[in-house]
């Protein structure tokens, strides 16, 4: 067992967990943050993507103990009260989701992509989404949503809540 201390969505949490506990298990089962999903066993689908110290990481392939001391942001930590993060807003506006299962990972990765690129074209967005699989949308509207959010975030729309 290990004691793991994390800041999750701005809240300090401490849990005693088995060493083999994955971060996604800690989030979903110990903290009740079920917005982060598991869609595969081989670190490929990206439904489990969260931010650790500001960077996108697949929480299904990280031990909770490995990121002890880190700041974790999940899909539940993006909105500032009723005010959505621009990336969330863009997915809604552009119909960038259908069943919603891959969506949290897509949104977390979308933010990471925007943070790393000063300008984004469709080709770059598609390439950067290599580690996130969607079976519903054909990616068409996801790409549109990320592009639109990038434009919104570039003009300085605030609300990078909890980041």
């Amino acid at each position, binding site marked *: 067992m290990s004691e793991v201390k994390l800041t999750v969505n701005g809240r300090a949490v401490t849990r005693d967990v088995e060493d083999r506990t994955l971060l996604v298990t800690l989030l979903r089962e110990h903290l009740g943050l079920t917005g982060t999903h598991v869609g595969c066993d*081989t670190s490929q689908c990206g439904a489990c993507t969260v931010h650790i110290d500001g960077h996108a990481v697949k929480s299904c392939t990280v031990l909770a103990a490995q990121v002890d001391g880190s700041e974790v942001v*999940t899909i539940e930590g993006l909105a500032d009260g009723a005010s959505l993060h621009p990336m969330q807003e863009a997915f809604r506006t552009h119909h960038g989701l259908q*069943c919603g*299962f*891959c969506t949290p990972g897509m949104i977390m990765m979308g933010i990471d992509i925007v943070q790393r690129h000063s300008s984004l074209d469709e080709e770059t967005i598609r390439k950067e989404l*290599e580690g996130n*699989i969607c*079976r519903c*949308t054909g990616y068409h509207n996801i790409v549109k949503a990320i592009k639109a959010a990038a434009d919104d975030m570039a003009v300085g729309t605030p609300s990078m809540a909890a980041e």
Partner: protein
Amino acid sequence: MGEGIGARVLRKEDQRFITGKGRYTDDISERDMTHGVFVRSPHAHARIRSIDASEAKNVPGFVGIVTGQDLIDGAIGNIICGWMIYSKDGSAMKAAPWKVMDPEIVRHVGQPVAFVVAETRAAAVDAAEAVTVDYEELPALTNFHHALDPGAVEVHPEAPGNLICDWQLGDEAATDDAFAKAAHVVELDLEQNRLVPNAIEPRAAIASYNVAEEHYTLNTTSQNPHVARLCLSAFYNVAPEHKLRVIAPDVGGGFGSKIYIYPEEITCLFAARVLERPVKWVADRSESFLTDAHGRDHKTKAKLALDADLKFTGLKVETIANIGAYMSLFSSATPTYLYATLLSGQYTTPNIYCNVKLVYSHTTPVDAYRGAGRPEATFVVERIVEAAARKLGVDPIELRRKNFIREFPYQTPVLMAYDPTDFDALVEKGLAHADHAGFPARRAEAERRGKLRGMGFSCYIEACGLAPSKAVGQLGGGVGQWESAEVRVNPVGTIEILTGSHSHGQGHETTFAQVVADRLGVPVGNVAIVHGDTDKIQFGMGSYGSRSGPVGMGAIARALDKVEAKAKVIAGHLMEADPSDIVIENGELKVAGTDRKLGWHEMTLAAYTAHNLPDGIEPGLTEKAFYDPANFTFPAGCFVCEVEIDPDTGITRVVRFVAVDDFGVIVNPNVVEGQVHGGLAQGIGQALYEGAYYDDAGQLLTGSYMDYCLPRADDLPSFSLDHVETPNPNNPLGVKGCGEAGAIGAPAAVINAVTDALRTEAMTMPATPEKVWRAVQAMRAPIAAE
């Protein structure tokens, strides 16, 4: 219009999904819940000598184990195939029993053998691994191409020679006669690659049992919770329907794979009763690959007869369809009535004959996957039409136009009676969006860069909106295919729609509310859609086969008719007017031609206070309808695909994809376009990327995303969509259904483009880089080879 039919209303359900507040099965926990893990066969075919769980019982956290024998002892029934078909000699299909967990024989890798339950998932995994199963390995038949070979390993004694059914449709003699008289005959060998549906949410179940009330609750990833309850009660003998509640909460995609009731859900319910504790089972992706019903998997010989004027005179199709190790729920219908009935395509071909041999193999069961039979039919028709055009040196579009059906309703020689659509208009728009005229220049430009370009077409028609119950019954279907709806108007005027349709991504909470808004003028925000719970909704058939729009909304429309009629009677009484003079507009009931009006909420409150209702009118305002469609619906479209091939590596890129569809009336363009995008991705995936392969021992070689290529964002282009709107005359709303069209039409368009670029007809799906590279080598080989 505002928020009514045709408006691009943003989805109401999105708020919870984008904030991480969706509630999928695995997100739910019950008090005192245990976790189950299945012990699965590592062999494709083996006899089980013994199962030893003694070590598993020592694993900390072990709670219990259920074996196949326990289920048999508990009188749990076998898994059914819900559609009876007959061979051409009149004999019934030879369906072998599918035991939930066969205690004696395993017939595919991944078949469940035992269910181990523990306090945590990790402990259950540890305990399951500690179960020792002694197998006697037996020879396996894993390549269905050899299923009918003399002496082939037999999968079930009930189906000698592995032949389940030798089924036919159409007039063989007339079709043979057409070939005897044909001016031209074109033949083509085709394969439908085996696909794995891959909803991103894996299947899951939480079963609980209330001892005092002898009542079960099952939360599960289902596209049709009522059908699940019906099967669990009537056939699997878990509990009578009134003692079993099935809930399908948020469900993360289905594509057909979540229609079926699998061994896992049945076993969870049984375990919950035996252990008297809730049991959760969640598939990991590897289990999904091994146990979710796979799709497609045909081998086909087709030939097309044409007269001297290039009119199609006959089509003859012979198919072997792989059913896998057991007959899943719709497995008999998918490669027969959902396939051969569409072989007329968009054409006036007068003589069509199809023979399908359904065979067993030692592989995962195969059943309906997005499109279910219709992608297979479209692939046959649209590939052979394009091949014929090339062989005969005519433009593929001209050949199609020469043979288009232009008079409706049109009775095909393969059962279907098409409702009106406009194939010429679809093609015209398709060619315009694809810049067909500019293609030769683009091809030449690509050649200068050392690349090969091809353009391919697919003019599909499909039958969805399953379906008139009487017709389904006559064809062997075990259930009716109507849908139910209840419109509950509350005293304050807000509305709940209880629907038997189930949304697992389709956006019903928004589109169904739009239908109400359109009729009653109430805001979409005042309409709640209730679905996916057998305790709340009286009955329903669920969502598959693009039926939620044409059938599910049809039921809502019929219930709204009744609500509207009663509302007018009440309003007329209150305003001292004749009900026939009442009009409903913008949330008000008005007396036509006067300034007398009543707010919608005033009328609803009056309905519930019942202080002043007309004689003979019951209080309240709640109406139900069961809607049974008069016919299938027939969406159709024209897809144009342009590919560019790197001849040195064989990598094929879809550089342009145009889809023009006729879905009849469109309720929400955003949602419909999204459905098309997703369908296209799956269709392009089938054509270029996806394929499930077994080795000779029956191991699934493509059992994870490491080897099964699910299309990623950079594998696909942005799509160019348009539509033609021919309202469906047989449906209260004029809608036709849109969920499968993309997956149905796309494979043929892509392969027609690839084969156009490669100047060969010999290309199987998926057209992988290596296959394409080999075709390039063949194309560039010296002419002597011809």
